[in-house]
């Protein structure tokens, strides 16, 4: 048990100031940058999956897709797919009525894809256009999904079309993708063609019904149709495979 200390004139002196800490400083650290914007080059994962990815425990993004794990950080996608292309489809202003007037924000819709079987669609809303676009890109990366490609006729060369007839719906717009022979190209409207090009589909016939002028619904309908490509159990998947623990269970000690 320590003896009670007594305060003397010597001990009452203030300790030596550490470097960088001045008297009277009101609490704002000198090292703290104004604006609060993080340096994007240094990624500090905030999720378990992010930590595993940064530590190199996850070999490819397909492992994440295999276990249907949600991606909450866009840096995970940047880690595996550094060559992703981004395109802003539309930016529109949306308003909300408040007692002080109208509050206007901008909503941006964005596509990301590597033209090799991965496609993402995202939406971002913010007070400024640039921020909305940035948010939509991050959201699109988090929503990235694999696209299963296939053949129309003979299995020669690389897969060039969708695996089978696919349908995706959003709102009133229903988008149907039909496999096409090699050389047909993408027979679709402008916005659906863009989504399919980003996914890496080379030949496909499409059909749209509903109010197709709604760009967001058309793009999202096509995106959902492509998402459905891996939701089908085809005969080549019938063989029984060993059940493996998912990434979080496998690296639970990390």
């Amino acid at each position: 048990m320590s003896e009670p200390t007594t305060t003397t004139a010597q001990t009452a002196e203030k300790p030596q100031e550490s470097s960088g800490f001045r008297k009277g400083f009101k609490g704002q650290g000198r090292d703290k940058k104004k604006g609060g914007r993080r340096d994007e080059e240094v990624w500090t994962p905030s999720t378990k999956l992010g930590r595993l990815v940064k530590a190199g425990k996850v070999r490819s993004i397909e492992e994440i897709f295999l276990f249907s794990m949600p991606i909450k950080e866009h840096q995970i996608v940047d880690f595996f797919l550094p060559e992703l292309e981004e395109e802003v489809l539309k930016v529109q202003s949306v308003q909300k009525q408040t007692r002080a007037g109208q509050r206007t924000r901008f909503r941006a819709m964005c596509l990301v894809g590597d033209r090799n079987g991965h496609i993402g669609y995202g939406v971002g809303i913010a007070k400024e256009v640039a921020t909305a676009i940035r948010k939509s890109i991050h959201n699109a990366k988090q929503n990235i999904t694999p696209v299963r490609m296939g053949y129309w006729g003979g299995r020669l060369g690389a897969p060039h079309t969708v695996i089978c007839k696919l349908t995706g719906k959003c709102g009133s717009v229903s988008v149907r993708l039909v496999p096409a022979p090699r050389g047909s190209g993408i027979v679709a409207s402008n916005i659906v063609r863009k989504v399919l090009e980003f996914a890496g589909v080379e030949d496909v016939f499409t059909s749209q019904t509903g109010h197709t002028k709604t760009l967001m619904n058309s793009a999202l309908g096509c995106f959902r149709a492509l998402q459905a490509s891996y939701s089908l159990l085809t005969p080549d998947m019938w063989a029984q495979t060993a059940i493996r623990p998912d990434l979080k269970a496998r690296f639970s000690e990390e």
Partner: protein
Amino acid sequence: MLPNLRLPCPVCSMEGERIPLIVHMKEAHKLAVPRLPDLLDPRPYLLLLRARISEQGLEAFASSRCFIRRSDAMVCIDRSLQADKDDRAAGHVCVLRHALRRAQLERTQACYVRGCLVCRDIFRGVRVRDYLKHLEQTHRMYLGNPDNLVYTDLFIECLADRLGRGQCLSCDKVFPTQGLLRQHMKKKRHLRVDGKDHSLDCFYLVNYRDMLDGPEAQRESAWGKGSESEDCPDMDALDTPWDAQAEVEGEGEYAGLDLPDGVAEAWEGLTVPGSQYQTAEAADTGPSVKCLLCESGCVSGQAVLDHMIHAHGADVKAYVDSVSLDTYGCIRLVNYLRAAYDTGALSTVEGGGGASFPPHPVCLSSDPHPLHPWAPRVLAGGEEEREDCYTVQGLSVRFRGDDPLLRPYQDDDEMLCVVPGLAYMEEDE
């Protein structure tokens, strides 16, 4: 009266719009022309008046047969003056003849270019009545009988100006934003032009006929006499406001924004919709969709199907249902029709200007055209190729691995997206 018309002064060589001209005549020449605003197009009448004044002099013509208003010391032309009546009638006949010619031109020429007043569709190379039909059928906006309308391009521009200012077409109320205007017009169903708005009378042919003083004066003086008159000025020589190449331009709402690097390139050229009534940029839309059986173009694939029914009597949907075509069959049908039309394989309907629609593929001829969807390919040994046979509900269709009819015959063919959709509902998912 037609907007932005340059009216000639009957005394000097000055030209101007209606109100500035009236003010000029009053201040410079102390002349008042009665009922000038009542005339739908007073230019020929003013030209005839100028000819008379130049012959007889202003004081002689106006003072010998009129009264002088002592309050403002002006001269005016007596309404009962027969010469003035004849000039008015002759001028009216000129205007009516020009309006009729113009109406006939608008009925036949398919060169109208404009964006829709309500949606973002752009119409290129269509007749004016097709544009009005789109407004009526798609947006329930009825502007009048197309046969009764004249100077329709100016009419649409007038309406577009009003809508752009936030003014309702029916009740003339002005709203601060386009969204409120649209909401008001939709809620109150104010999608018709106000019948009591006389500023738009010049766009309806029936008003040209009823412009004169009653039917008696119409029969006695104007029609028989004015039509034979050689003094009637040549309206076509006057500056007519017909702009068939009006380009629709709209400014992006977000032009000049400072965007981060890498995103600005993706942002360039992106069109951002503004108000509901703002017309879209011309560069954002693709070309019109060509009909499968003739050279005419329509704004969309569905419009082509409607056109084929009305113009050629070809109901593609009924045909697809009758032979139970599936998606691939529809694609081959479209490519076959495109190729056959270009190569002249389809027979031409006499006087119709379009190709006939095959009622059934096997009925075309005993020796089907090589481009026929169901024509089997004969191999070197004389046998028919049987590879990749694909049977469709009772109709045997042979798909080859390199079937040329499955490749789009025309680039960006919207019919390949529309026609297969007709078979979509029939197939099992």
